[in-house]
């Protein structure tokens, strides 16, 4: 077998390659220099032409920035609410006509046992299980007496609902199991029932059942805008108790029914299969009744985000219209400019510039102008978005894709509209162009 011969990279070949590359780079540098000189020569016209592109880009970017920032706020809210990787299960009434069937009567509904059974479906995937049970009771403290909602919670409720302890401690496993008379108060509840006092170690009376306050939660604050109310304010009013306490001591419920079950699955790819299996399991455990509703937080969020894309389209359309108008104006200005430069084109052709060279010269000028418009538009759009989000009191956020969209649209329009004058220029006959008056 013959050995393959390698093509030797001789110094002559390398030198030739470097020379061609150098000439090519030099030609482009010259085109850019010439285009820049031409644009600088007519600053007013250049500014006018770039303005259309700038407005289009600024319109797209500004709109996208607003939309992106709102979306990011919504995402942050969801994360503060516990995260995107949660699957909630809620009880829902079963549709019925007439008296309940025997199966319906025998079905105890969504209950604590469903949590453990559900988690067992995917022990590797489920990273947390939470449950809650609500009740309304008369709450008395040394400082206040009022009817309030109390929340019985399960083991992973605190992290999964986005709470964090401020002082004291959480519930021990034994306390959760036994339904011990202990409570953790949200900052609002602590303020309401123990104004100006330390609630830790104090006793609250819940409908005649005393519970000891063992901890308090950090205050939860989230505002969608500067003047908006605290969207998490209601969570600060929580009076958290072991779920078993609410179910057994307050409600005397032998089935330990719950108002909400939550499963955390950090790996998104497992969520769909888990939700399907969980639905099947719950239906089997609930006497074939679909008396529950699943809520995949991540999927719901993505669905909402997709629906919000319509605003992006509106912003994109307004930008496109601005660019379309600018493009038509620019074509006319370029054509007028070409009429002023016909002899110059003729001279270049006479000196040896090929038609493609003339075409590229005009295109370079138009694209440099577009680039300037894009840069100004990006800066303007950012400024516009910054002012707008400042006024709305939310942090500015922009996806890299928004910059890309604005830039690509403007570049595409700039390119498309530059073709006509560049094509006309390169089609000129050198003789006719030189004689042009």
């Amino acid at each position, binding site marked *: 077998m013959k050995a393959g011969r390698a093509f030797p990279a001789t110094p002559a070949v390398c030198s030739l390659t470097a*020379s061609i590359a*150098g*000439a*090519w780079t*030099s*030609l482009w*540098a*010259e085109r850019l220099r010439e285009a820049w*000189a*031409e644009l600088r*020569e007519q600053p007013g016209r250049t500014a006018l032409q770039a303005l259309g592109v700038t407005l289009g880009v600024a319109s797209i970017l500004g709109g996208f920035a607003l939309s992106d920032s709102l979306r990011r706020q919504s995402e942050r809210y969801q994360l503060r609410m516990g995260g995107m990787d949660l699957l909630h299960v809620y009880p829902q009434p079963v549709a019925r006509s007439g008296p309940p069937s025997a199966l319906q009567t025998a079905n105890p509904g969504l209950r604590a046992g469903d949590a453990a059974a559900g988690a067992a479906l995917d022990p590797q995937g489920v990273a947390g299980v939470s449950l809650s049970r609500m009740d309304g009771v008369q709450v008395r403290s040394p400082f206040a007496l009022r009817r309030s909602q109390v929340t019985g919670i399960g083991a992973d409720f605190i992290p999964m609902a986005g709470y964090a302890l401020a002082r004291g401690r959480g519930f021990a496993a034994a306390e959760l199991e036994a339904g011990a008379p202990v409570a953790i108060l949200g900052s609002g509840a602590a303020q309401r029932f123990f104004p100006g006092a330390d609630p830790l170690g104090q006793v609250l009376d819940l409908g005649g059942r005393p519970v000891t306050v063992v901890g308090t939660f950090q205050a939860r604050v989230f505002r969608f805008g500067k003047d908006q109310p605290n969207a998490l304010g209601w969570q600060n009013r929580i009076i958290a108790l072991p779920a078993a306490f609410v179910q057994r001591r307050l409600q005397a419920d032998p089935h330990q029914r719950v108002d909400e079950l939550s499963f955390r699955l950090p790996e998104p790819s497992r969520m769909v299969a888990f939700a399907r299996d969980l639905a099947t399991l719950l239906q089997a455990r609930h006497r074939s009744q679909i008396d529950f509703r699943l809520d995949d937080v991540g999927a719901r969020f993505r669905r909402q985000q997709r629906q919000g894309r319509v605003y992006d389209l509106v912003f994109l359309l307004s930008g496109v219209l601005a660019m379309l108008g600018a493009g038509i104006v620019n074509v006319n200005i370029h054509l007028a400019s070409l009429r002023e430069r016909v*002899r*110059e084109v003729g*001279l*270049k*052709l*006479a*000196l*040896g*510039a*090929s*038609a*493609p*060279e003339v075409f590229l010269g005009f295109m370079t000028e138009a694209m440099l102008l577009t680039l300037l418009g894009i840069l100004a538009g990006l800066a303007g759009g950012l400024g516009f978005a910054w002012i707008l989000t400042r006024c709305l009191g939310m942090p500015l956020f922009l996806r890299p894709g928004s910059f890309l969209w604005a830039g690509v649209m403007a570049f595409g329009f700039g390119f498309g509209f530059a073709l006509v004058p560049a094509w006309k220029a390169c089609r000129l*006959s*050198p*003789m006719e162009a*030189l004689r042009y008056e």
Partner: protein
Amino acid sequence: MPLAIEARGIAKVYGTGGVAVRALDGVDLRVEAGEFLALIGPSGSGKSTLMAILGCLDRPSEGSYRLDGEAVEALPGRALARIRNTRIGFVFQAYNLLPRASVLRNVELPMLYRGTPRPERRRRALELLEQVGLADQADKLPGQLSGGQKQRVAIGRALANRPSILLADEPTGALDSHTGGEILALFQALNQEGHTVLLVTHDPGVAARARRQVELRDGRIARDTGPGPGP
């Protein structure tokens, strides 16, 4: 001497049908390398049209044209551009300098289209400006020069890619007689160096500086003094 230009039966027709105008009508012209030829004739005689065809700026409607032995009348646009760039140097009556480019850059222009690297381009342009006596004006804009200086820049530009043929269309038409004389002397010197010079003029005094005169009338050669003694 080898032939620099060999045109046979060149005709140029503008318009069609009843409004067709024959600007050139069967011109035969043979120019040897190194000649200094003046193409003379009254306005409308077709001399500028012939120069445009000989300079590959335009195509003949009929006839054949060989430049340095190569048939060019049917070459594609890009090849013609290459020929204009490397083998022909143009000098125009109105100088046709780029007003916003420096003198140096104007001279560099043909080399730019040839793809000459920047350092070499710069060196050659300065050398040419030295040759036409304008080395100290390199950074000026054309608007800052006199008519004679502008025409010298144009001649320097025409020589940039070392063309074998120089085509000058009324190069002294916009100059006073003294400056015009200097420019013609420059052309004579270039011819002495071996360049083929083809000069279009309507001025018999200018034409007299050339060794051969070809007179056009109504698109036809009316008189040809024939090649004179070599440079």
